[in-house]
């Protein structure tokens, strides 16, 4: 394990007085490898190790704890600092309906997460409307209808021959008619390099100005997380990230990239396929998981 390897690397630090770039070199290399194995972005790791070196350099070797534990604590605390708040709440509009929009690459869990958010909000006494704006994927609108039924909430769409922008615009009148105070827009998965599809989400955003725009990404995403996050961030005023499939064993280093590039907090994590499987994000636990 990382802690065993670090213990070995640092056992000759005792009695050296203070941590220096030189005597930390081997240990920091191990940490660098651990972060890369955890899918933290290559450039992010480079900067991170430089920051940790600076934070640790010159620190007294504390005799009461092992040097490797001291370094791990510095790294762990730096990770937690990057990942920020653990209680970033969903935005609620002053005047209903609150509009939440889910965006992201193909197959990351948007439609399922839309259902989970509906369940979450219903438990809090809200009345959500699930809106099927994916007209491309076969049976996507049907999928959302089934999920709405399972969640016990309302759903709306104009069908797969309609324009997604029109569906989203019309959903406001629909929500008002049905007394729904929250609209959850499920959009189609799209590539950040697909200009037409990125233009479509920009159009939807301009047409209905959602209060919350959540980027949905899979916890097992690798180095590419920085690329997709950057394009979505540049095209839309993102307000949060949802990290799905956290019930797997991916280390989840993509979380660092997503937070740093979008400048947004991770508001929820998906922890299963059932609609109840939506949990709060815990930076401390995530830091442990990334370090392995």
């Amino acid at each position, binding site marked *: 394990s990382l802690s065993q390897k670090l213990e070995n690397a640092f056992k000759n630090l005792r009695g050296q007085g203070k941590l220096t770039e030189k005597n930390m070199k081997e240990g920091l290399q191990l940490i660098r490898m651990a972060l890369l194995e955890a899918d933290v972005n290559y450039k992010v790791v480079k900067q991170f190790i430089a920051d940790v070196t600076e934070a640790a350099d010159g620190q007294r070797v504390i005799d009461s704890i092992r040097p490797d534990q001291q370094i791990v604590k510095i790294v762990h605390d730096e990770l937690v600092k990057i990942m920020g708040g653990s209680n970033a709440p969903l935005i609620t509009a002053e005047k209903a309906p609150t509009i939440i929009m889910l965006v992201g690459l193909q197959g990351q869990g948007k439609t399922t997460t839309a259902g989970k958010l509906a369940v979450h909000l219903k438990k809090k006494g809200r009345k959500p409307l699930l809106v099927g704006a994916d007209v491309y994927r076969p049976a996507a609108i049907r999928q959302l209808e089934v999920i709405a039924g399972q969640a016990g909430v309302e759903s709306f769409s104009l069908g797969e021959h309609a324009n997604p922008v029109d569906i989203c615009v019309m959903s406001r009148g629909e929500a008002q008619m049905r007394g729904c105070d929250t609209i959850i827009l499920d959009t189609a998965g799209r590539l950040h*390099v697909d200009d037409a599809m990125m233009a479509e989400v920009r159009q939807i955003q301009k047409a209905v100005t959602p209060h919350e725009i959540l980027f949905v990404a899979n916890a097992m995403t690798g180095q590419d997380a920085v690329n997709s996050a950057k394009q979505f961030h540049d095209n839309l005023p993102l307000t949060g990230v949802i990290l799905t499939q956290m019930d797997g*064993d991916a*280390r989840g280093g993509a979380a660092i990239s997503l937070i740093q590039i979008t400048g947004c907090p991770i508001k929820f994590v998906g922890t299963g396929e059932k609609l109840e499987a939506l949990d709060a994000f815990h930076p401390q636990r995530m830091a442990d998981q990334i370090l392995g």
Partner: protein
Amino acid sequence: RALGGGLGEEAFEEIEGVLIQADLGVDTTQSLIAFLRAAARLHHVGDTETLIGLLKEELARILEQGDHAATWDGGGGPHVTLIAGVNGSGKTTTAGKLAARLHREGKSVMLGAADTFRAAAAEQLTVWSERVGIPIVKHQEGADPAAVAFDATDAAVSRRVDCLLIDTAGRLHTKVNLMEEIRKIRRVVQKRIPSAPHEVLLVLDATTGQNGLQQARIFTEAIEVTGIVLTKLDGTAKGGIVVAIQQELGIPIKFIGVGESIDDLQPFNPREFIEALFS
């Protein structure tokens, strides 16, 4: 220190960055860099371009191992392909594209909708079966997936179909009960046709990082994966984890997914894949 001519440590660092950012992973990257250092000394390499050329050759040597060509011979009966992988990787879409490809090649094809769990899963595959114009075997949502797999295999035999493609539900390799379910699906198919499944495809999303190797390990141990379909290569992710999968497990990539339309499935071409790593 320079290795002669213009080759310095930065050349190796630059290559390391390219490989890591292509998701090849730390271990694979380190062994490739070690190989390159030795090769550079041996061949007195003096420039980065030649160094990268050596790297591409080594990657080609790794990726060209094994049998990339999918063969569709069921030895007298239907050829059965089982399609598996984690959630959202592109299994159902791949099943549809593969069905279309085989149909275009003049084969009689049937689809089996063994995902009985996820909302509208059977409806999604049904749209694909209609696009291709082929029969589909499906049950009610909530039915036993192994029963669907068995019925589809049975139907393929009695209707003398050339190729049966069985789509299964997404499942995380960490879920013991779901891995047992896919084992059972494989068993019942084999029960109906002893030589089946003839192909077991693991569908892997190119955006997946190091976890892809663990997925391949667990799925192979459970259902003997014979090939990888690497999807979503039309994005910016490089899918480099397949190099580690080839090296460690000897599983070849058979197809790549390059889009969401019916024609967006291509046979794997190692040279093109390697060029794309460096583009």
